[in-house]
C-alpha cells in the first residue's frame, strides 16, 4: 500500500535561515502520528509547506499518491489535507456554528446540510450550547476546538494538528483526545504536533522527532523518547529557538 503522505528531500529556507534542510518521511494511512522537536526545529514550517502556504525550495510532496505541488491551500484542504493553527482563528462576523459550517460548504453541502452536520460536530465536543454565540467572547480553548471542527467538516483524510491541545482545559483535553482516537478508528489519519508529552504518549503509536530542519529519528514512542539523539536535540539546541518557526508565529 502506498503511503498517505510522502515527503522526499523537502528543503525550505528564508534568506540565510535554512528552516527545513532535508525532510524525508512518510505517513501510512490510518492512525495517529506524533511529531515533536525543540522550538525552531522546523515543525511549523513543515506544516506550512505541506499545506501549500510556502513552496519548498526543493523536494517532493505526495498526498494519496498524487504530487500536490501545484495545488493551493484551499484545494489541498478540499482533497482531504487539512490543518489547524497554534493560535485560534475564529471567524468574528459569524456565529460559532456558522464558522464551523464553512468547512462543510466548501465540501459542497447545502446550508441546511452543513448546519445540521455542524451541530452534530459541536455536540461531539460539548459545544452545542455556544452554537449561536459570536466567537468574540469565547475562551481560547473553545476557539481552537471550533477551528478543529471547521476543518473536520471537510471530511479530511489527514489532519495536521499544530499544537491544538496547548491552552485547553483539562476537561477539553480529555474530550478532544477521545474524539481524535474515535475519528482515527473511522479512518482519519492525524499528525499531532505537540509539546505536551502526555498527549503524545497517550495518542500516538508512531513518533517522529525533528531537529534543525531534519528528521532525527522515528519509531515507537517510548523507544524514541529515550533515544540519546532526541535527548541531545532537546538539551543541546534550545538556544537556536525561534528562528525557524518565526514565520508562522507572525
Amino acid at each position: 500500500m502506498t503511503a498517505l503522505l510522502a515527503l522526499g528531500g523537502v528543503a525550505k529556507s528564508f534568506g540565510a535561515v535554512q528552516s527545513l534542510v532535508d525532510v524525508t518521511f512518510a505517513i501510512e494511512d490510518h492512525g495517529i502520528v506524533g511529531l515533536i522537536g525543540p522550538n525552531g526545529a522546523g515543525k511549523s514550517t513543515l506544516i506550512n509547506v505541506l499545506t501549500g502556504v510556502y513552496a519548498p525550495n526543493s523536494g517532493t510532496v505526495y498526498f494519496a499518491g498524487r504530487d500536490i505541488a501545484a495545488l493551493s491551500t484551499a484545494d489541498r484542504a478540499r482533497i482531504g489535507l487539512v490543518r489547524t493553527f497554534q493560535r485560534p482563528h475564529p471567524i468574528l462576523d459569524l456565529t460559532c456554528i456558522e464558522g464551523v459550517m464553512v468547512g462543510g460548504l466548501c465540501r459542497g453541502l447545502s446550508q441546511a446540510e452543513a448546519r445540521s452536520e455542524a451541530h452534530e460536530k459541536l455536540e461531539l465536543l460539548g459545544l452545542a450550547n455556544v452554537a449561536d454565540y459570536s466567537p468574540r467572547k469565547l475562551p481560547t480553548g473553545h476557539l481552537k476546538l471550533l477551528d478543529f471542527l471547521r476543518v473536520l467538516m471537510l471530511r479530511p483524510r489527514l489532519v495536521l494538528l499544530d499544537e491544538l491541545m496547548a491552552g485547553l482545559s483539562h476537561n477539553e483535553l480529555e474530550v478532544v483526545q477521545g474524539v481524535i482516537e474515535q475519528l482515527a478508528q473511522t479512518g482519519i489519519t492525524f499528525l499531532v504536533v505537540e509539546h505536551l508529552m502526555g498527549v503524545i504518549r497517550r495518542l500516538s503509536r508512531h513518533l517522529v522527532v525533528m531537529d534543525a530542519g531534519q528528521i532525527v529519528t522515528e519509531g515507537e514512542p517510548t523507544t524514541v523518547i529515550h533515544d540519546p539523539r532526541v535527548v541531545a536535540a532537546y538539551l543541546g539546541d534550545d538556544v537556536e529557538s525561534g528562528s525557524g518557526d518565526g514565520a508562522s508565529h507572525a
Partner: protein
Amino acid sequence: MKRTLVILVVWALFASAGILLRNNYLVSVATSAAFLAVWGQSWNVLGGLSGNISLGHSMFVAIPAYVTILLFQRADVSPLLGALLGIAAAVALAAVIGAATLRLTGPYFSLATLAAGAVVLSLILHYDELTSGPSGIPISFAHDAPEKLEFTNVRAYYLIAITLLAAVTIFLDMIKRSRLGYYIAAIKSSEAAAAAAGVRVAWVKVLAFCLSAALTALGGVFYVFFIGFADPNFLAGLALSVKIALIAVVGGTGFLIGPIIGAVFYESIDAVANAYFGAAGGWDVMILGLSVVAIVMTDPRGLCFMAERLWQAIPFRPKVSISARGV
C-alpha cells in the same frame, strides 16, 4: 425575512414622503444621499464584508455612465441596453484589477484601485473627441421618456434611487447569509484560516469585487441621468471614490444601515457647512475629514457601533432589538 419586511416598510414611508414633499430642492438632496448610500452599500460587498478597501470605486460610476450616454448620443443605442453594456465593462475592469491585486495582501489593492481610478479619469480627459474631455457631456431632454431614463420630475429619480437603495440593501443582506457571505466573512477574519477550511480566497475576493462593481455601476447609470450632466472630474474623481469608502465606513460596516447613516451624515455636514460658511470655503471638506479622524479614533467600527454602545449604556432602556444589525 423580517429584515426584508422592515426595509420594504421603510422604503414605502420614504417613497410617500418624497411624493408628498413639495420642496424640489430637498427631494434632490435626498436623491443624492440615496445614490451615495447605494454606492456605499455596494462598496460594502467587498470593503465591509472582506476588509479590502477600494479607493477607486468612482471608476465604476463613471464607466457605465459614459458608456450609456455615448452609445445613446452617438449610436442611438437605448440607454437600457447601454446600461447593461456599461455595467459589463465595469465588471470586466473589476475582474482584471481584482485578479492582479487581490491575491496580494496589504495595501496593494487600495493603491491599485486608486491608480486605476486615476487612469480612467485621465483617459476620459485625454480622449476628448469621444468624451468631450473636461467640459463633460450635458444630457438635455424636455419630455418624459422612461425607456430612455428621462424624467422631468425629480421625484422619479428619487423613487428610482430609494428603490435601488432598498434593493441593494436587501441584496447585501442576502449575500451575508449566503455561502458567498460565509466565505467572505472567513476571509475577513483570516485569509490563512479561510484557505485552510477550503475557501478559494482569491477567487472569492475577485467575485465579491465584481459584484460590488456591478452594483455601483447600476447606481452610476441612473445617477448621471438624474444629474443631467456627465462631469468627468466628479464622476471619475478620487474625491468620489474616497467619499464612497468613507460613508460606508463612517456609518459602520457591520450594520446593514451603516452606509445609509454614513450618507445622511455626509450630506448633512455638506448642507450645514455650505449654509453657514458658503460652498467655496473648504469647511465641508474639513469637517468631514476631521470627523472621520475623530470617529476612527473613538470607535473604528463607525457611528452605528457608537450608537449601539451609547444605547447599551442607558440604564433602564426598553428592550428593543436593532433588527438591521448583522450578526
